[in-house]
C-alpha cells in the first residue's frame, strides 16, 4: 500500500503543484474571479437584466444614475448598462476564439519549423517574419473591409494576423526539446514523426505556449475593440468596442458613453493578464525568481 503511493506520487504532483502555485498568487486568483464574473455576466446577465441593447428605451444622453439608468443612455437612447452586459459575450467570445485560431496556426507552423529544420524551417520562419512585419491592424482592416464584417470574419482576421509570436515560441521550444533523450527513446521505439510532434514534444512544450495564448486572448479583445472603434464590427451584435466607436462623435457631450465600455475592456484584459502572469509563474518555476 505504502509503496504504491510512493510510485503514484510523482505522476500526480506536478499538476497539483501547478494548481497550488496558481491559487497561492492573490493577483492570479483575483484575475480569474473577475474573468469568470464577467463571463457569467455576459452569458446569463441578460436573463436578469432583460433590456434589449438595441432598443431605444429613453431620451438620448441621459447621464448615469438619472432616470433609472445606472450607466445612462447613448446617442440613440439605448441603455448602456445593457450594452455592456451583452457586449461582454461577444467581446469574450471573439477574444477566446481568435486566440484559439492564432494558437492553431502558430503551433502548427512553429512545430513543423522546429521539428523538421532545414528548408521547411527556413520557409516557415520567413512567413512568420513576414507576419511580424505586417502592420496587423491594417491587414485585419483590409480583410474585414473586403470580406464583410461578420463575427466570423472578424475572428478569423484577428486570428490570422496575430499568430507570429506563438509560432516563434513553439519553434524555439521544439528546437530545444527535440534534442532531448526521451524524444530519441520514443523515436527508437518506433514512433513516426507525427506522433513525435503532437504526442511527445508538443505536450512538453505546452507551458510557454499556454501562457502566450492567454496573453493573446487579451490582445484579441483590444484588437476587436480597435476594429469596432474604426467602424468594422458586426452590426447585428453589440460589443464593447462598438459602443465606444458609435459614441465617439459625442464624447465631449457625454463622456460616460465612452468611459464605461472602456473600463469594461480594461478590467477584462487586466484580469486576463493577471491570469496569464499567474499561469506563467505556475508553469515555469524557473522564471519565478524574476
Amino acid at each position, binding site marked *: 500500500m505504502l509503496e504504491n503511493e510512493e510510485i503514484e506520487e510523482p505522476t500526480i504532483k506536478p499538476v497539483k503543484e501547478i494548481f497550488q502555485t496558481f491559487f497561492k498568487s492573490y493577483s492570479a486568483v483575483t484575475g480569474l474571479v473577475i474573468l469568470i464574473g464577467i463571463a457569467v455576466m455576459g452569458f446569463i446577465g441578460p436573463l436578469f437584466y432583460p433590456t434589449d441593447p438595441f432598443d431605444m428605451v429613453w431620451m438620448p444622453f441621459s447621464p448615469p444614475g438619472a432616470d433609472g439608468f445606472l450607466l445612462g443612455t447613448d446617442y440613440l437612447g439605448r441603455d448602456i448598462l445593457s450594452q455592456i452586459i451583452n457586449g461582454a459575450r461577444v467581446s469574450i467570445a471573439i477574444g477566446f476564439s481568435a486566440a484559439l485560431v492564432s494558437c492553431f496556426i502558430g503551433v502548427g507552423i512553429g512545430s513543423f519549423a522546429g521539428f523538421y529544420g532545414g528548408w521547411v524551417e527556413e520557409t516557415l520562419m520567413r512567413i512568420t517574419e513576414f507576419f511580424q512585419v505586417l502592420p496587423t491592424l491594417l491587414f485585419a*482592416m483590409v480583410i474585414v473591409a473586403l470580406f464583410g464584417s461578420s463575427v466570423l470574419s472578424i475572428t478569423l482576421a484577428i486570428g490570422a494576423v496575430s499568430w507570429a509570436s506563438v509560432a516563434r515560441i513553439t519553434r524555439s521550444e521544439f528546437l530545444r526539446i527535440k534534442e532531448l533523450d526521451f524524444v530519441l527513446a520514443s523515436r527508437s521505439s518506433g514512433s513516426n514523426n507525427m506522433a513525435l510532434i503532437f504526442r511527445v514534444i508538443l505536450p512538453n512544450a505546452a507551458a510557454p505556449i499556454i501562457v502566450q495564448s492567454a496573453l493573446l486572448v487579451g490582445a484579441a479583445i483590444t484588437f476587436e475593440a*480597435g476594429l469596432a472603434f474604426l467602424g468594422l464590427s458586426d452590426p447585428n451584435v453589440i460589443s464593447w468596442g462598438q459602443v*465606444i466607436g458609435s459614441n465617439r462623435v459625442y*464624447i465631449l457631450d457625454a*463622456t460616460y458613453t465612452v468611459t464605461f465600455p472602456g473600463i469594461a475592456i480594461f478590467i477584462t484584459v487586466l484580469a486576463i493578464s493577471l491570469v496569464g502572469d499567474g499561469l506563467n509563474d505556475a508553469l515555469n518555476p524557473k522564471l519565478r525568481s524574476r
Partner: protein
Amino acid sequence: MLLVLLVVVVLNFLMLHLAPGDIADTIAQTMGGADEQDMAELRQQYGLDQPFFIQLFNYVVRVALLDFGHSHFYNLPVFDLIMERFPATLLLVFSAQILSLFVGILLGVYAAQNPNGLSSLFVNMFSLFGYAAPVFWTGILLLIAFSLHIPIFPVSGMRDITIETDNFLVHFFDVLRHLFLPMITLASIFFAYYSRLCRASMLEVLGADFVRTAKAKGLSKKDVLLKHALKNSLSPVITFAGLSFSAVVSGAILVETVYSWPGLGTLAFNSIISRDTPVLLGILIFSTLMVTVGNLLTDLTLKALDPRIKI
C-alpha cells in the same frame, strides 16, 4: 526587404481577387446599376477579363511603377493621396517610438537599482496598464481631459490654420504642440513594455561579473550604471522595439483617428467608411514599407551597440 514588399503586393492582389465583388461591381453600384454590356466593358477597361496570372503580373508592375490605382472617393490617384498624408504618420510613429524608448529605458534603469521599491512597482503596474487599456480609449480619456478640463494642448489636427506668418519656427512649434497628445497616447503603451523589459534586463546585467569588476575598480555608481551596465542591457529592449514597430503603426492608426491627425490612419478610417479599397491597399503597402525601414534602423542600432552582431 524587397521580398516582403512583393509578398504584401501579391497578398493584396489575392485578397482583392478572393473578395466577393470586383471594381466593376462597385462602380456599377455607385452609378446606380449597369447592364451586362456595360459591365463587360468596365471589366475589360480594368483588365478583369484577363487570366489570373496576367492580372497579377500587371498589378505588381503597376505598383512597382508607383501606380496604386485611383481613389473613386477622392477622385485622385492613390499615390498622391498617400504621399500627402505619409509625413504626418511618419512623424507620429517615429516620435512616439523614440519617446517611449527614451522614457522606458530611463525608468527601467531607475527601477532596476531598487528591484523591490516603489519605482519597480510603478513600472510593473504601468506595464499592466499599457497592456490592458485599449490605446484609442486612453486617447479619448486624454482628449476629454485636455479639451474639457485642462485646455493647454490642441486636441485635433496637426496645424492651426489661423496662423498667418511664414516664420518656420512658429509653424514648427505649432506642429509640436499638436503632436504632443497623440504622441503621448501612442507612447503610453510602448514605454510600459520597454521599461519593464529594460528593468528585467538591467537586473540581469547588474548581477554579472563584469559589473562587479567595474565596481571593484572603484568606478563611480554613475559610470558603472551608464557606461558598463546600460550598454549591455539595451539589446533586448532594442530588439523588442524593432519587433513592436508593426504594433506602433497599428496603434498610430487608432490614435490618429481619435485626434484627427491628418495621417494614413485617418485616411484608412475614411476609406473604410467610403469603401475605397484601393486606398486601403495602398496604405497597407506603405505602412509595411515603414515597418521594414524601422526594422532596418533597429538592426543598425543593434549593430552599433554590439559589434559582434552581423547583418
